[in-house]
């Protein structure tokens, strides 16, 4: 049995705001609410990288958020897709080239789907997620690496007590 067709039916979402204006985040909330109800597609807002398939990133990635974003990405098991929501996620949107901004999600972790808009409507988010699960289906279980993977892993190391 080909299991990867089920990926399409149960996309679990991890959401992280990397410093956007919150506009996108409240639209994510709205899409959980009765009117849009993305649970229809089996999508859940898991809030936990370990069990998520889709990393939904909003915001332009400020300098302080980027390590958090990397960590979350690295903690997600493959196959995974990254959806950058809003203009911020693509090149930083209105915050493009600000001094404390990394200009979009793709500069930190590889993005698969960009949802345009500022803020995108929940419909656009749903479209984006539909797109994302199509991509999810074609992905393999191989480990994905981010740029300068090993260096970054060293940098992110956790402390023990």
């Amino acid at each position, binding site marked *: 049995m080909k*299991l*990867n067709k*089920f*990926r399409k*039916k*149960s996309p*679990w979402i991890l959401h992280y705001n990397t410093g956007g204006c919150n506009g996108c985040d409240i639209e994510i909330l709205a899409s959980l609410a*009765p009117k849009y*109800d993305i*649970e*229809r*597609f*089996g999508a859940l807002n*898991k*809030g*936990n990288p*370990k*069990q998520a*398939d889709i990393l939904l990133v909003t915001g332009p990635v400020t300098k302080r958020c980027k390590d958090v974003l990397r960590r979350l990405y690295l*903690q997600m*098991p*493959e*196959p995974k897709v990254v959806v950058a929501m809003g203009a911020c996620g693509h090149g930083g949107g209105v915050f493009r080239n600000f001094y404390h901004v990394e200009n979009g999600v793709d500069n930190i972790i590889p993005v698969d789907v960009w949802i345009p808009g500022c803020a995108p409507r929940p419909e656009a988010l749903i479209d984006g997620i539909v797109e994302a699960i199509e991509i999810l289906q074609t992905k393999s*279980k191989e*480990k994905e690496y981010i740029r300068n993977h090993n260096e970054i892993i060293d940098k992110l190391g956790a402390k*023990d007590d």
Partner: protein
Amino acid sequence: MINLLITIFAPVLGGFVFGIERIIKARMQSRIGPPVLQPFYDFFKLMDKRAYIIHSLHALMGIMYFIAEWFTLAVLLLGNDLLIAVFFHVIAVLALVIGASSVRSPYSVLGGLRELMHMISYEPLMVLMAVSFYLITGSFDIKTILSFNGYPIFQMPLVFFAFLLVIPMMLQKSPFDIAEAHQEIIGGPEIEYSGPFYEAVYTGKWIEYIYVFTFVFLFGGNHYWLGILLVIFTFIFVNLLDNSTARLDYRKMVKFSWFVLIPLAVLNIILIAMWR
């Protein structure tokens, strides 16, 4: 025979119950909700994920939790002693808690500790319930209870009521979804599991549904229609409760269980004992 079948297909059955529950919950929130087979979609998807673990002990405990849950159900349905089944349930909790505490994640650790608080809230009551069944039917044997010609529900209404409020504790439903507390500790004990290993914990929960509803069914005695009715009623009631309450603190849960539910159950037992 039917017991054996239920035991073997418990995960499937539980998955269905869980799926129905998700729909019902969505409807209560005036949403459409996922399809009925959603839990199975989740299941197969999780199968297909790359395995990420914290360490082997932790992952193993997830699997042991599933096995222990299943075995507990087998003990309940195939053995003949309610009491033993109640005690067996602790093993499942053990696996879950050890797993949860074995990782250095505060959420998981807190989840494990809160799980213990759940246990302290429902375990004594389960024992009392088993005892009250014994009192009425003269046996701990599930088969005897199911052939008991009477209506246990009418003789132990308070116990049933107490059990009704204990179910949210066992199934992690609001107001007692304390160990899972999605908005506080993001799933608690299960937070660090992922992929195939999470699946074990996930399906373990489904079996718990069957385990709990078996007890509800027993309240019908040999009137199976009543048993089924009770199961449906309980199912709807628990979900309504889930949707109309905020999550309480674990202290409140323990206090509620100890100062309200257990006395109620004891009262009922005393009344039956004196009545006889």
